[in-house]
């Protein structure tokens, strides 16, 4: 599988923001590779740094307050250090993005047809008006909008949430990008519409062969869509695994806590839900050592190591499972297997 060509390489990405309260360390030392046609999921709760990561890949973070280090390589260009013009050439053509809230992602002042056309024209300045129009209709048909010729002249507010998300997808895919970043693409939608949108994205992936980076808090969505998964906590990847391994034998205490909370919701029996005690840490003031240690029931098993030393991402458990935890392999797998059942 990994013999396929990498389309996105992220090396040691760190992003911090200057705020009036201090420096927020949103992403810390993140590395991963996305291959052609692959679907990689990033899962995490609010404040885990997953959305900041998404924005960094296209250099969409606020250029005044954000500081990014490391490398993000798309089509041979380091997005973090390239000139504005070079990055602009990549945006929308090599790498495109679908946002969380389709209600606010479209410009309310222009028709949807215009907004799709605009995305195409900026990378195809030579296209004639007729070609552009044909492309707009083609994309609208592709994403399943009925009466595209008529609806192209309507404004975003005249569409339902699901239809708007289809338009956003049409805009993202109009230039056949190799990478699609989907940042919580279905979170704002109803379940039945969510199912439609996920199906659509997967169908289009089969057609275009693009790689999808799916960012979500919903493990159900991850289970249905992703092949590999990064679990993020407080700006770091705590686990990196094949999706089936992750759900079967999570190799990080946070992952199994997260899975446990969801899994116990799925079963019908009422009773006490498994939870992770406490709340995620403030990114202004991260805990020392492993950021998860204040909420981890096993931190004490390692003496003071968890509170002083940041664990590295190393292989634990199954072949493709990497996790950042000081616990011995056997102990983690033991814990993980309890959850897997």
């Amino acid at each position, binding site marked *: 599988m990994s013999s396929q060509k990498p389309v996105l390489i992220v090396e040691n990405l760190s992003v911090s923001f200057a705020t009036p309260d201090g420096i927020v360390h949103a992403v810390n030392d993140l590395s991963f590779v996305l291959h052609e046609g692959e679907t990689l999921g990033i899962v995490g709760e609010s404040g885990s740094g997953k959305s900041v990561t998404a924005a960094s890949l*296209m250099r969409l973070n606020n250029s005044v307050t954000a500081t990014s280090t490391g490398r993000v390589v798309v089509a041979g260009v380091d997005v973090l250090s390239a000139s504005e013009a070079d990055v602009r050439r990549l945006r929308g053509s090599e790498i495109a993005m679908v946002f969380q809230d389709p209600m606010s992602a479209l410009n309310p002042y222009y028709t949807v047809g215009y907004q799709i056309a605009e995305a195409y024209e*900026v990378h195809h300045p030579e296209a004639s008006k007729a070609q552009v129009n044909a492309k707009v209709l083609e994309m609208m048909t592709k994403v399943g909008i009925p009466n595209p010729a008529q609806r192209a002249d309507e404004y975003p507010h005249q569409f339902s949430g699901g239809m708007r998300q289809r338009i956003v997808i049409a805009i993202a895919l109009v230039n056949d990008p190799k990478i699609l970043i989907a940042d919580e693409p279905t979170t704002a939608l109803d379940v039945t519409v969510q199912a439609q949108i996920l199906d659509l994205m997967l169908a289009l992936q089969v057609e275009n062969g693009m790689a999808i980076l799916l960012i979500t808090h919903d493990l159900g969505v991850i289970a249905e869509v992703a092949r590999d998964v990064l679990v993020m906590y407080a700006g770091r990847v705590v686990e990196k695994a094949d999706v089936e391994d992750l759900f079967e034998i999570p190799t990080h205490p946070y992952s199994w806590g997260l899975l446990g909370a969801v899994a116990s919701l799925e079963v019908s029996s009422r009773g006490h839900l498994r939870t992770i005690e406490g709340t995620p840490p403030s990114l202004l003031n991260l805990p020392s050592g492993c950021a998860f240690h204040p909420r981890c029931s096993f931190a004490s098993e390692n003496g003071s190591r968890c509170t002083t030393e940041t664990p590295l991402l190393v292989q634990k458990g199954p072949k493709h499972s990497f996790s950042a935890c000081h616990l011995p392999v056997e102990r983690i797998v033991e814990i993980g297997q309890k959850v897997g059942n």
Partner: protein
Amino acid sequence: MFLFVVRRLFFAVLLLLAVSVVTYLLFSALPVDPAALTCGKNCKPDIIAANRIRLGYDKSIVEQYWLFLKGIFVGRDYGMGQAAFSCPAPSFGYSFAQHECVTTLIGRTFPVTAYLSIGAFIMWMIIGVGSGAIAALNKGKWQDRLANAFTAVGVSLPTFYVGLLVLFSVVIWLGILPFPDYVSPLEDPIKFLNAMILPWLTLAILSAASYTRLTRNGMLEAMNEDFVRLGVAKGLSRSVVLRKYVMRAAMVPIVTIAGLDFASLLGGAIITESVFSLPGMGKLAIRSVVESDLPVLVGTTLVSAVFIVLANVIVDIMYGVLDPRVRVK
């Protein structure tokens, strides 16, 4: 859309009628006898009585109002025989203090106010929106701080103070310009500009301040919108994103408020006209107050009201044009 406009205009007319009733009643309730003001100090009671009949002040207030309203549409005749004269439609009455039809007075003073308003409006929009945009694009830097200071000073200073300050510094202290002396632009465009530049500047400085703030905040707010990020993510250039995404969103409230500000200026910039002795409608209104010249007072008030009401209708329509979300299907 058509029905929407018709409905708005219908309500605008109703509103103006109501305003005219209230204005007329309010000013008629003032403890002055308009007939007594028609002749000088050595007036005899019989002349006052004759004038009262001639001007219709002997009739009931309802009848007076009816005559006034009718006059707007068909004109109005005063007196009889040799002494008869008339104010053709639209007539707002006859000013005995100035011995002219009110409409003639307004017609003469309005162009001055219009020149003042239009010039000031253009200046303040350029200064206000321009400095607001520069501040937003340089948030937190010295340009932004400068704009903030300008806003704070501009919104807190009173008109007469800025007017006198400008007048003093430019005319008396620096001596760059002569003291403003209004001349019609049709007569002498250079002299006209000389007279208008300072009042324009005064109004522009004062109003621009709030537009600076409005533009800056509107743009900063828009820059945080998801759709602006999507614009950037499409690969659009910064200038296109700023123009089509950021400015477009920030412009909607600006246009709304600009329309209303402009209209209220058209009704007479009383203080500015007084400071720079411009013979505009504001000055006319002030004079009518001082002289208790009721017909002129009612006339200028109504004309101002017409502008405000019309501007509201236009702004509503513009709102629909600018923002498809409020467009009526």
